[in-house]
Each structure stands twice: as C-alpha cells, then as structure tokens.
C-alpha cells in the first residue's frame, strides 16, 4: 500500500511457529503483514496428529474410552460421554438413572473447569497476568473433587459403556455444596476483575467479528457460534442424557466479537452451576451401571451421535461390523471447524489482535489434529 511521496512498502512474512507462547498448543500460523496489518494468513496444523482414529480400529470398545479422553484434553468427561452414548445407542442399552445424573454433574463440572482455563489463558493473551492465578485456584478445587470421584485429576476413564465406573464417595453431597459455593464466589471475583476492565475492553471489543450466516457456513459451533447470535446448543435442540429435566438458559451474544465470545463462556459457567444444583437435588439412588461384559460385540450398523463439548459440538460416527473392534470411528471435533473460520476472522486485524482472536476461539489442538 503506497501513495505518492511515501515509501514503497513490501509485505513481510511472519511465522508464528509451532512453538509460541500464545498459540495454545502446536499450531502454526504464517502471516503476511503490511506494517502491522495482516494481509493474508495460512494456518498449518498436524503437529499433534497422533492417528487416534486409526488406533481405535485396533482396540476393543472398552479400551477406546482412554483414547477419547486424550482428544480434547481439557473436557475429558464430555468426550467419554459422547463415545459411550454412541456405543449404547448402537447396542440399544439402557443406562440407569443415577448413572445419568452422575454423568451430567461430572460433565457440567468439567465445563466449568474448561471455561476457567479459557478465562485464565484468554486473560494472558490480552495481557492480564492475574486472572490465570484465580482461574487455576478454582480449577485445583474442581480437580480435587474429580480425583475423589474417579481417581485421577485428568484422563479419568470414568464414564464407561453402560454407566459409570463406580459410585460417588459418601461425602459427595457436602463436598459438592462447598465446592459450588466456592465456585460461585470465584467466578464472580474473576468476572469483576477482568470482564469490564477498560484495557480488556479495548483489546477485545470489536475485534474478530463474524456474523451468524458466515459462522454457520463454516460449521462453527458452541460458544463461538452463540456469540454471533445463533441459539444453537445440542443440549436444547436434541437433549441427550437427562438434560431435558433441567431448567437452564443459553447465553447468546450480540455482535460476534471476541468480547462476546468471552462473556458467553463466563455466563455459561453460571448456567452450568445451575444445572449441577438441580441435578444434585434430583439425583435418585440405584445402580450406577448396567452390567456389560468387557468384550462386547455390538450389532452391525452405524450411528452418529452429537453432544455439547465446552468447545462446541462434538460428534462421533461409529461404524461396526459385528466384531469386537470397531470398523471405523470418526470424530467430528468442534475446534477443527472453529479453526477453519480463522482466516475470515483475521481479515483486517493487527498482528497483536491475531493472538487475541485465536485465544477467543478456545482451541485445543489435541482435538483439531486427533
């Protein structure tokens, strides 16, 4: 871009390589910049492609839960849930009520933990160094509860085909009440700290706009899509598990900029806590799993199941031919589709805004590359 009497400029290629403090994992972006404005952009993924889908064809159905744990490594329970739902649908298996309620409580707690991590890392992307400390303080409390219930802080392998692995501990209700009170306070503190701070607003308002129709055509989902004004949530459109028994809202944004994508997630945390409170009230007694053999051979057929991950809509396409190992497992990851819209989002941004926009999409590269 040069005018009469000014210097001739040339575009420079800047590589935000696989190792970068703010690319949230091994993601490589090649930017062509003119001064500070981004002119063109090319994303490169595949630096974490572990071949999980092919590995699934060599493992029995019960072993695949561990592979799904590690796909979106921040929302572990949600991944396990969608896979177990797919197998249960194929086998037409009924899951006991208590197991469904435990699954919902764990998945919603996981959603809160995942959004807390987003809150912290998005603060770091925008330049705020304190929110991540608050976020991890609350996350440690949630992870301590996960450890009490399932035995591990991450990678729980707890939701199994037919139910859950074991019942919750005896003091579960007291621990949950205490945890919910602390989480409510923690979320409010973080909200007061960051959401309406002037510097944060200047860095995120109006940055990375995307309108509803473009977002749908790219296949975006989850909070990134709801921030553009589209009321699409699998828990409301096609309720799975026992989500139709709870009364909760879905936060919708207005403009589709980075601040909307951030604030939708903060409000979602509050709605998740509402769901958890209702589930704790309604949880019945009973068995926690339908007895299922370890080596199962589901009938031949194929099924596609969707569920709501903290990042968006995750889908599992499972093809079985009657053997003890699946014929084909395909995962439709939410971050993969959200990332496709990055080029559209970065069309007129500054280089410094590229980091904020990438952070606002809340990606997990383990899911993008599988």
């Amino acid at each position, binding site marked *: 871009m040069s005018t009469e009497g000014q210097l001739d400029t040339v575009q420079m290629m800047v590589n935000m*390589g*696989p*190792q*970068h*403090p703010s690319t949230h*994992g*091994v993601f490589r972006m090649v930017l062509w910049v003119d001064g500070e404005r981004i002119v063109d952009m090319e994303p490169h993924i*595949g*630096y*974490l*492609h*572990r*071949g*999980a889908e*092919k*590995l699934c064809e*060599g493992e029995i159905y019960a072993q695949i839960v*561990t*592979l799904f744990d*590690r796909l979106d*490594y*921040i929302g572990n329970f949600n991944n396990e849930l969608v896979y177990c739902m797919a197998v249960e649908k194929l086998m037409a298996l009924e899951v006991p009520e208590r197991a469904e309620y435990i699954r919902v409580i764990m998945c919603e707690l996981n959603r809160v933990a995942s959004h807390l*991590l987003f809150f912290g890392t998005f603060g770091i992307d925008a330049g705020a160094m304190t929110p*991540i*400390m608050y976020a*991890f*303080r609350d*996350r*440690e409390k949630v*992870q301590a509860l996960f450890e009490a219930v399932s035995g591990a*802080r*991450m*990678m729980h392998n707890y939701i199994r085909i037919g139910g859950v692995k074991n019942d919750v501990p005896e003091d579960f209700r007291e621990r949950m009440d205490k945890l919910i009170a602390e989480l409510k306070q923690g979320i409010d503190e973080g909200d007061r700290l960051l959401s309406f701070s002037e510097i944060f607003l200047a860095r995120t308002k109006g940055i990375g706009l995307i309108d509803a129709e473009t977002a749908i055509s790219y296949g975006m989902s989850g909070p990134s899509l709801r921030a553009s004004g589209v009321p699409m949530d699998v828990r409301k459109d096609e309720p799975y598990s026992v989500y139709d028994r709870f009364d909760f809202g879905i936060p919708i944004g207005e403009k589709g900029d980075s601040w909307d994508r951030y604030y939708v997630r903060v409000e979602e945390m509050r709605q998740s806590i509402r769901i958890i409170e209702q589930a704790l009230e309604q949880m019945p007694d009973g068995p926690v799993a339908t007895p299922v053999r370890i080596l199962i051979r589901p009938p031949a057929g194929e099924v596609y199941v969707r569920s709501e991950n903290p990042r968006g809509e995750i889908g599992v396409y499972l093809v079985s031919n009657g053997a003890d190992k699946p014929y084909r497992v395909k995962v439709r990851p939410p971050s993969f589709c959200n990332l496709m819209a990055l080029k559209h989002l970065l069309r007129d941004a500054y280089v410094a805004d590229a980091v904020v926009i990438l952070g606002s999409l809340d990606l997990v*590269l*383990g899911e993008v*590359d599988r």
Partner: protein
Amino acid sequence: MELTVGSGNQEPRSMLNRSAPGIITARSEQLIAMARKNSLWPMTFGLACCAIEMMSTYMAHHDLDRFGIVTWPSPRQSDVMIVAGTVVKKMAEPIKILYEQMPEPKWVIAMGSCATNGGPYYRSYSVVMGVDHIIPVDVYVPGCPPRPEALIDGIMKLQDKIMQDAKERGRKA
C-alpha cells in the same frame, strides 16, 4: 589441636581461616552448579495434555516459582526444555531446531509417557516413540499425565543431577 567437649561447628584451623576468618571456600564448579540449579528457566513448550498439568504446576497451588523457575518463551535464554506431550513426526524437526537454539548448558526433561516412549500412541504411524530418539534426555517423569508433585520430583532430581555432575567433573579435572 584442642578438643572441647560439647562444641560442634569449630572452624578448621587452617592458614586461610587464621588469616581471613569468616570466609567459606568451595570449588567454583559447585558454586556455579548451585546457582544454575536454583534458577532453571524452562522454555514454554507444552505440546499436548501434559502441558495442562505443567501449567497447574507453575500456578499458585503447587508453586514452581519458589524453586526459581520462571517460564521463558524464547529458547535463546532458557536452560531447560520440558517436553510435555506427544512428539509427532511432523514436529520432530522443530524440536531439534529448538534444542539446537538453546545455549549450553542445557537439560531436557521428558514429561509424561508419550515423551518417554510413545505412551498410549506407541503403535501409531505418526508418533515418534519417545523424544530421546531426537534429543538427549536427562530426566524421565512417568505418568499419563504425571501429577504436579511428580513433575516437581523430576525437577528436584534434575537439580540433584546438576550438582552431582559438577562434583564429578571437578574431581575428574
């Protein structure tokens, strides 16, 4: 030499002590190693799931700042590379380039079972079975993912290794 009962830390009666009392001496390698081990600066290099546990270790609950550890984004000014996550063949070359960009002395901690030997993906077509095929590793921390306490244990073992290496090098020289 006088022996007084009940007295512990006596200053040795050497010429240095008689001429310049109140000064400690040690070999320079040990002092330098003590300085290095107490301010290890790792490069922020989280690849996959272990990165989340690594971040948890840095934060307030299992604070790593009290060990002198500050994460530093640039490889040119960092001492230690904590490889946290699965090493994929496409990523092998960037890892080698980053390792070569770090100045001496440098150490590598392989965190998690994927960096140790491929982990749950050991039969995959696109995974390097352990980061020690590419770069030399000093400490292996097992687990999937290792608890923050396990990572702290690994870092403390690295600190012991740094001191031990300094002692042995001094003796050999």
